């Protein structure tokens, strides 16, 4: 009986692994096959010849390196601005009593459900009038606006869990309000900060709708909006396309592997508290 159960469990584990990992494996394996092998029927599960020619095409024969750099700039800018502004806001929400707090909270809550489609047309017109289409700033600021409410909401939760007696003690020692935020609250809410930063990072990295709408110059395009450079009228170059997919995935995968614990802890804080 026990043995049968063990076999069953192994089968289920194997099934889960295949469903999740096979698509990723196929993405990778297609990127390292020679072009004629990609289209071979029946398909080869393991490449006969490993090649990095598609990666060479991506890095030397396309604009992908520029897109990559743009994505890094936009993502880093977004994460930085969102974390700073959201920290100030969450600090105010959890450490001070003031008029209008509930109104502010309602706005933050409402802002989180606004579909991007309500913003894309007015912001397109607005950035156009300001002559700011095709700039990093338009992408970064729009990303910030979309992600800020969620970041404030989550950070408020984390800051609340930092005991207030700590800043009372610091206040008596003569620390300024800013000093308490930077030396006490932020270090103690580190895991929350990391979780919010990662969520913002992962979301901003893959943002596509804003980038493809506000950007039409090759100099400024981001990876998600530019990856279809391999989809041409004469056909789809599947080799380079899959290689570019790997290139787009690796940075977030790396970040995920390094910070997985903090991410999981941060995201599920709400699920375990109640």
């Amino acid at each position, binding site marked *: 009986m026990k043995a049968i159960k063990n076999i069953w*469990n192994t089968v289920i*584990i194997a099934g*889960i692994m295949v*469903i*999740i*990992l096979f698509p*990723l494996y*196929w*993405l990778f394996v*297609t990127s390292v096959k020679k072009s004629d092998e990609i289209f071979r029927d029946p*398909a080869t599960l393991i490449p006969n010849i490993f090649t990095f020619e598609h990666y060479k095409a991506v890095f030397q024969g396309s604009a992908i390196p520029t897109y990559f750099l743009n994505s890094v700039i936009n993502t880093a800018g977004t994460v930085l601005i969102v974390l*700073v*502004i959201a920290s*100030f*806001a969450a600090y*105010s929400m959890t*450490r*001070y009593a*003031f008029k209008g707090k*509930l109104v*502010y909270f*309602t706005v933050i*809550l*409402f*802002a989180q*459900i*606004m*579909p991007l*489609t*309500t*913003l*894309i*047309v*007015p912001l397109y*017109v*607005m950035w156009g009038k300001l002559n700011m289409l095709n700039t990093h700033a338009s992408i970064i600021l*729009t990303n910030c*606006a979309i992600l800020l409410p969620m970041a*404030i909401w989550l950070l408020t939760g984390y800051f609340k869990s930092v005991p207030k007696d700590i800043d009372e003690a610091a206040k008596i020692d003569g620390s300024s*309000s800013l000093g308490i935020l930077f030396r006490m609250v932020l270090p103690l809410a580190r895991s929350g900060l990391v979780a919010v930063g990662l969520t913002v990072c992962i979301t901003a990295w*893959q943002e596509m*709708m804003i980038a493809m709408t506000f950007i039409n110059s090759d100099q400024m395009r981001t*990876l*998600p909006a530019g*990856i*279809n450079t391999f989809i041409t009228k004469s056909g789809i170059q599947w080799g380079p*396309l*899959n290689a570019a*997919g790997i290139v*787009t*995935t690796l940075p*977030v*995968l790396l970040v*995920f592997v390094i910070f997985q614990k903090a991410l*999981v802890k941060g*995201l*599920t804080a709400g*699920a*375990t508290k*109640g």
Partner: protein
Amino acid sequence: MTDKRLLRKFVPYLYLLPSLAVIVSLLAYPLFYNLYVSLHRWQLSKPDKPFIGLANFKDILTDDIFKHVLLTTIIWTVCGVILQMAAGLLSALFVDERRRSKGVLRSVLLLPWVLPGVVTALMWSWMLQSDMGIVNDILRYLHLIDKDISWLGPDMALGTLIFVNTWKAFPFWFLMLLAALQDIPDDQLEAARIDGARWFSIVRYIKVPHLTPIIGATGVITTIWTLNYFDLIWVTTKGGPMDATSTLPIYTYRLAFEFFDFGKSSAMALISLVIIGIICSPYMRAMLRSVKE
């Protein structure tokens, strides 16, 4: 002294100032601007943009395509969220009971969620190619089909994309539910086991009731995400073939940047906002109540 006290009164507002600047200029103002645009005949091809009241809304609501888009959106969202929840719940229940493989399984199951949407879309459209995709190859090899299936054709596209989106989105459910499951006190489960409760009764009478609040909250969040999800459908089908996968965000975007009818697109976006607002209002009210306390 009084100066200092006055200043102190302003401190909380000073901290809020940067966020307010962003929210007012990049969320609130655009939302009102959206309303303004929606009340005008605002087409990029025409220089004059006359005020036409609610005509854009009337046009949309009486158009057959809107009914089609709405129905597609409902199917996409309802089926999607139910499947995500089912997959998330089953995998969370399974992984929660594992000892040695728990850590590995959790890492692996989170991968689709981290994978950029664009990559998910390209990866699956490559695998689902009807003539040279690996999915049809495997199914033919297993003799489950004898003719290639056109996964992204008019009949199958919506169902296929619901499946792919489930693959991508269920890890969030899994993560939330797993965390909640680990929170159940061990003695409760132990007591039930000693009393001879079967696996199914433990799940039914102890685990699921414990999960209910998380299922509610996660349900609202994933409903908004699924309804608004744009990248996957845009990259794979752009809403086609023959509008088979045209959901609200896809159709709204196409109205603006393919048909260049900003007025109609803005009206459509506001209709989406109202629909989402209605879905979320009980949840938002609960959140505000919990904040007030």
